[in-house]
């Protein structure tokens, strides 16, 4: 019986790039400007041939082998045993920037006011209260789900999608479904 590892299922097929998830996170945590925990990136035209029409909503991937945790000198990160959520304890953080430099997905961001790092901690307080993460709850298209990636068996789901870099050593706990394209009739 594999351990539970929570992560996001980003259904790019359903996703309409409405940014509700990103704003739901801000609504919950009121982050400093430019300290974005969840960002919605347009998929490039090379991959999806209509500008700004397919989107990757990305936060922290709560990797199975998180680099942030490895490089932190003060143990301000820990990975929860019960569900694999990687929590950042900002009180312990000394703002050294190691995690920010080491995470290839750019999840930890520097907060210039607090002079510390911070990142998505999968709304663990909400999870423990039996609630969904703010972004998952806040998606009107039902395109963002919280799944146990060790159990998630959707045949269309992949761990790496075009536009999302592959860092297999980290083993990011995220899954995607690719978008589809319409048949286009132009004048």
């Amino acid at each position, binding site marked *: 019986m594999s351990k539970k590892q929570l992560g996001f299922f980003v259904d790019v097929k359903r996703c309409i790039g409405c940014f509700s998830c990103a704003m739901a996170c801000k609504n919950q945590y*009121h982050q*400093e*400007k430019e*300290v974005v925990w969840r960002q919605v990136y347009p998929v490039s035209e090379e991959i999806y041939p209509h500008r700004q029409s397919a989107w990757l909503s990305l936060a922290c991937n709560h990797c199975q082998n998180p680099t942030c945790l490895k490089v932190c000198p003060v143990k301000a990160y820990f990975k929860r045993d019960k569900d694999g959520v990687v929590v950042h304890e900002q009180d312990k953080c000394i703002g050294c920037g190691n995690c920010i430099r080491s995470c290839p997905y750019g999840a930890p961001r520097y907060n*210039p*006011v*607090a002079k510390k790092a911070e990142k998505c901690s999968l709304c663990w307080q909400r999870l423990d209260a039996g609630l969904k993460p703010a972004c998952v709850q806040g998606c009107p298209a039902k395109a963002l789900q919280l799944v146990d990636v060790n159990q998630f068996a959707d045949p269309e789901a992949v761990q790496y999608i075009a536009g999302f870099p592959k860092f297999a050593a980290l083993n990011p706990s995220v899954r995607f479904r690719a978008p589809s394209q319409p048949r286009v009739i132009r004048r």
Partner: protein
Amino acid sequence: MDIASLTLGALRDFFIGPDAESLEAAIRRLAALGGLSLEHQDWREVEYDFNRLFVGPAPPAAPPYASLYLENEPRLMAESTLRVRHFYQMLGCISPWQDALPDDHLSLELDVCIMLRESLLNVCDHKLSELYAYFMAEHLVLWVPAFIEKVLNQSNLTRPIAGAVHLLADWLESERSWLAPAVLTRDLSRPAVQLTGR
């Protein structure tokens, strides 16, 4: 009340003053206390400048609320605002505009300082002096200098406003010297927080 408290009182009334008349009255008091020189002034122009800086209706250039300078995300009625409300409660005070006006408006904070100073001038109470030192070191000096800098960086500042702000800076400096050396050597040089979009 000593000169410092009277000065503070006039500054308190200045920063909350709603119109030209009250701004003029506050400045005249400051002049009478010897804090600044009074020159011929179009007080209506001061009022327009005051609103441009502190009130609106356009986004104010330097809104005088602590939370905007202290919070991760500058907004009104933030966690730091409520801590200030709790501080007042602990001293048996409440803002008469609670919930409508953020508790951390500069004038309300100057008001609590006056109260603490006055109390301490009458009697030497360790608890009170500890509270005053705490409020000064853990709150006022963390945001008021940034606010002052924001104001002084504005162009075309009318003289009375510049004068009032300089007096505020002077008072803050003099009170800091009263705090313990341990506090003074703390790194109080927080960067002036960029108010978003302003």
